[in-house]
């Protein structure tokens, strides 16, 4: 046991200091922060542009608006002009920054023409829209608050089976959060299990494996590596999690992050899936590392494994169309795609409890089997150099009682 912890501690500390790990852990949040800064600046500039435009004139040829005197509804500086010529003169004289014209047939066509010497910022469009809605409401004279006409639906989804109520304003959180979780997980587990695999390949090509196998049992070595690097991956996810919470709080003023909260219950379910599937990938990667001959060869294997992992992303359309359809259900139950599938589905609809239970069960069984099988392959492949192992030999190693072997053809026999 003590030796296993020695291995775990060594793997943790050694890989923690790797430049590539530090880059991944701190680089990604820093990069995201930089993106934030850019977005802030861009949005800030857009907002300013509307204000820089100054007063916006309008000409109502349709006769829709009851009140043609200058309005400052919601503080918006709109000024009415009787004719397009008058508006044009005001624009040329720079008393107004832009003007728009409601065509005579506005009621049937909705045509609004905008004129300006500078570009028309996006934000102005929504201001014009709100202004016209107000005008229409006034015209109708109905006893309806203006607010309900401009925003008729404020949806709350009562997902009875998960007990989670989500108002419309956190819908982005529903869709975005699982995606972010999935990405964080893919990166964290990809980085750490990659280290695991490279470590094994390095120990094999360095021949230090000969020293290791006379000091520790393969199980101690494998378990130590998986635990040490698992904690490393967890460290990475915690750092990113903290960074995420900080950013969500910082980002409350951004329109697309408004109202997003850190969904704790989803995070916990995600964690459960992630721990299980980390063991799944890590033991698989360890197996690949011990079977492969070179770093290059192991990378080819590992990229196939990562590809299987992200299959659910290829089916995003199906997940959105029908989160409880056959494709999402299959991908939920298949252990390699389960974590990301479940999270994506949670984003779009409630997932029936039985599916979560069954998929967790399948995932657990598969993980236990793969850890066991890769321990066997590990023991068997540790000292085999120079020869790639065929699938049949690998299956043979899993089925045979564990022992080290070398083959005559490996060129490593008895010097």
């Amino acid at each position, binding site marked *: 046991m*003590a*030796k296993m912890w*020695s*291995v775990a501690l*060594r793997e943790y500390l*050694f890989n923690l200091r790797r430049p590539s790990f530090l880059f991944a852990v701190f680089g990604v949040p820093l990069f995201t922060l930089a993106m934030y800064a850019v977005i802030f600046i861009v949005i800030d500039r857009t907002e300013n542009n509307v204000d820089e435009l100054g007063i916006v004139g309008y000409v109502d040829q349709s006769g829709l608006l009851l009140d043609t005197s200058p309005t400052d509804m919601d503080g918006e500086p709109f000024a009415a002009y009787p004719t397009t010529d008058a508006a044009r003169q005001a624009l040329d004289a720079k008393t107004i920054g832009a003007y728009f014209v409601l065509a005579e047939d506005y009621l049937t066509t909705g045509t609004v023409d905008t004129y300006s010497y500078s570009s028309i910022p996006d934000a102005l469009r929504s201001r014009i829209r709100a202004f016209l809605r107000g005008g229409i409401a006034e015209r109708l004279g109905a006893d309806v608050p203006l607010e309900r006409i401009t925003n008729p639906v404020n949806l709350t989804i009562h997902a009875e089976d998960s007990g989670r109520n989500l108002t419309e304003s956190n819908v982005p959180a529903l869709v975005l959060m699982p995606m972010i979780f999935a990405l964080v997980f893919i990166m964290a587990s990809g980085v750490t299990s990659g280290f695991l695999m490279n470590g094994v390949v*390095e*120990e094999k090509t*360095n*021949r*230090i*494996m*000969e*020293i*290791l*196998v*006379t*000091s*520790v*049992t393969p199980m101690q070595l494998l378990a130590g590596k998986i635990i040490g690097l698992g904690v490393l991956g967890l460290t990475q996810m915690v750092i990113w999690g903290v960074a995420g919470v900080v950013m969500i709080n910082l980002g409350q003023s951004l329109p697309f992050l408004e109202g997003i909260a850190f969904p704790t219950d989803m995070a916990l379910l995600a964690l459960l899936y992630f721990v299980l599937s980390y063991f799944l990938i890590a033991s698989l990667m360890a197996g690949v590392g011990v079977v492969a001959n070179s770093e290059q060869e192991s990378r080819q294997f590992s990229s196939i494994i990562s590809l299987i992992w992200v299959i659910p992303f290829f089916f995003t359309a199906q997940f959105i169309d029908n989160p409880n359809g056959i494709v999402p259900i299959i991908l939920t139950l298949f252990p390699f795609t389960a974590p990301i599938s479940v999270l994506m589905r949670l984003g779009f609809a409630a997932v029936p409890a039985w599916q979560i239970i069954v998929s967790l069960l399948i995932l657990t069984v598969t993980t236990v089997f793969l850890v066991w099988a890769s321990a066997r392959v590990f023991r068997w492949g540790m*000292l085999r150099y120079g020869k790639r192992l065929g699938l049949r030999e690998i299956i043979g190693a899993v089925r045979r009682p564990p*022992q*080290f*072997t*070398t*083959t*005559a053809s490996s060129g490593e*026999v*008895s*010097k």
Partner: protein
Amino acid sequence: MQSDATISVRQVIKNYGSFRAVDDLSFDVYTGEVFAMLGPNGSGKTTTIRMILDILKPDSGQISVLGGVITDAAKDRIGYLPEERGLYRSVKVLEMMVYLGMLKGMSRPDARQRSLELLELLELGDHTKSKVSELSKGMQQKVQFAVTVLHHPSLIIVDEPFSGLDPVNTRVVKDLLLSFRADGGTVVMSTHQMWQVEEMADRLLMIDRGAQKLYGRLEDIRQQYALHAIVVEGQGDWAALPGVDHIEHNGREGTTLYLKPEATSASVLAAIATAADMTIDRFELAIPSLNDIFIQVVEDR
């Protein structure tokens, strides 16, 4: 099995598919000796060592190490210097040694203390913070040797311990091996450097194609291969001496006198002493070098 045998190998067979790597091998390694394993490339030495270390399992036969079937605890008392050297390349020397010491069951402070002592002894005291990849080949070799004896093993198995070392470092490693034996440790050494075996080994095993060819005390084996001949240096007509069958000039190595069956070295010496026209600078029994024995055994197969 003898009670003072550190390693006991009995009728061990190991096949790789249809290839028999080790063929019915039996031998003992006694506590406190330097035991040499010799044999041409591919003769089964490394396979035998790996079976002793429990890296490979024999197909049949028994191996007992440090008093019984090898256990994980027994492995902590063994030091192994593999022929294909292995070190972590991008790790600092001291850090790597401490880790490998801990994997042999040492505590961190002990491993650190002992590593520093060994590095000092091997004149690597200035390189504790260097990365392994920054060291010269000879230095790496010494670090590898330090790792082998780091955990105070009672048995060390060293595969080609001198390869890649210059004469000075060869002496350093040799002295360490001998002082290890002086402290009661047992050494199993596999090498091709016959003169090292002649200088250091107490007993030896020579295998070829997985089977035993020679086994026993070094002196006994050399006596066994001793020719009925004498090597001399000096002046005179050696061929005319009574009891001499024929002679062979070996240049600087002197002249070998092959004796007739009834002659002895004493009778030849007496004949030289009484001969008036002969001077003698050297007179010794022609005992073949281990190198000659090795070549003879391999060529006779």
